[in-house]
């Protein structure tokens, strides 16, 4: 029994030593801050240790990467869920005393112009086909063609074609608008 446990621990330790840095760097490259990346990397290996008995020793990095992605995903998701479920504060709540500094706002005519532009744009985006709209939304949010293809599970050619058509439609529809 000692031998089995010893072998188990030795294998895990070898895996940890080999891949910990890589997991940490991958998390950092995603944009996670140093301390949190350390925590998430630790969490990744804690999970691996807990399920190490089920690991058959094949595709070592694939196993680690999936676990690390799971940990990262849950961490990001928890932040989003927390934001969505955050308690809303009534604007006239007496306890709500924070007043942000006034910012310089555009004048009324400009605001009206801006609102009109956005309404037209929103209408035009709604008129796109679902596939075009999905590509456009991801593209505007900074995703590359290959990433959009991965998220939507379509080919890169399909992404390029849909984006080209979407931009063309919007230009034709709103080209004259300023």
């Amino acid at each position, binding site marked *: 029994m000692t031998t089995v446990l010893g072998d188990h621990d030795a294998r895990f330790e070898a895996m940890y030593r080999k891949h910990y840095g890589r997991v940490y760097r991958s998390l950092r490259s995603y944009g996670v801050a140093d301390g949190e990346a350390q925590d998430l990397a630790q969490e990744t290996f804690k999970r691996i240790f807990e399920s190490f008995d089920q690991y058959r020793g094949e595709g070592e990095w694939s196993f680690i990467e999936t676990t690390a992605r799971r940990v990262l995903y849950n961490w*990001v998701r928890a932040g989003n869920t927390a934001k*969505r479920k955050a308690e809303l504060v009534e604007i006239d709540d007496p306890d709500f005393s924070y007043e942000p500094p006034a910012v310089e706002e555009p004048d009324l005519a400009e605001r009206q112009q801006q609102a009109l*532009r956005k309404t037209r*744009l929103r209408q035009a985006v709604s008129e796109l086909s679902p596939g075009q709209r999905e590509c456009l*939304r*991801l593209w505007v949010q900074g995703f590359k063609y290959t990433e959009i293809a*991965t*998220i939507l599970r379509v080919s890169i050619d399909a992404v390029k074609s849909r984006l080209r058509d979407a931009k063309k439609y919007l230009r034709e529809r709103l080209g004259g608008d300023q």
Partner: protein
Amino acid sequence: MIRKTDLQDVIEEMNEEDRQRLGDPPTFDEMLAYTRGELSAEEEQRVRELLICYPELARTLTEPFEPEETATLAPVLRFRHVWTALAAALALVFAGLYWQADTKARRLDRQLSLPHVVANEQLLLPDGQRGREHATTLTVTGDSYLLIAALIHEARYPQYRLEIVDAGAKPLWRQAGLQPRDNDTFAVLVPRAFLPPGEYQVVLYGLGGPRAVHIATYTVRVPKG
């Protein structure tokens, strides 16, 4: 013209509406099933819409993790491979050059180590003192040329240096520390094989100061045959 900020605002509005409509983001297992194509069409559509309106979650799916160690090593290995090939090619080139030089040297050694007939001496006069002749044409009568370079110069130097250069001014041979013979000449025995047909220059320098002083150039031509 469409303003980028307007488009970003519109997309953010749509995201917010979809978040309200669709509810919580998908779990990791749902997302994994989505990427593997294991969901029903309806579920697939829901997860896709959720990923669009939760871009930071979608990014965890697309963000590349650090590549495999082997992948990191691959460029290094390729780099090594290229350098190995280059080194091997250079080794072959140098081996070829060495073989060529060695063969030539052996041939000359053999010629010099055996008795051979010395051709009539070829008196060389400095360029500019030969009249209309551009170069002295060497006479091919034996297996060597005995070149006699005449020192016609008033200034004297403690030592001299002789060089033989080809038509492209590439030095073929050089020897310093020379003294003229009693009759103010330098005698150089040159194996015939050393000078293939073409034009050459024998250049004489005076040594003794900080710089070598050019004294004379003797242009010679080796005829074919």
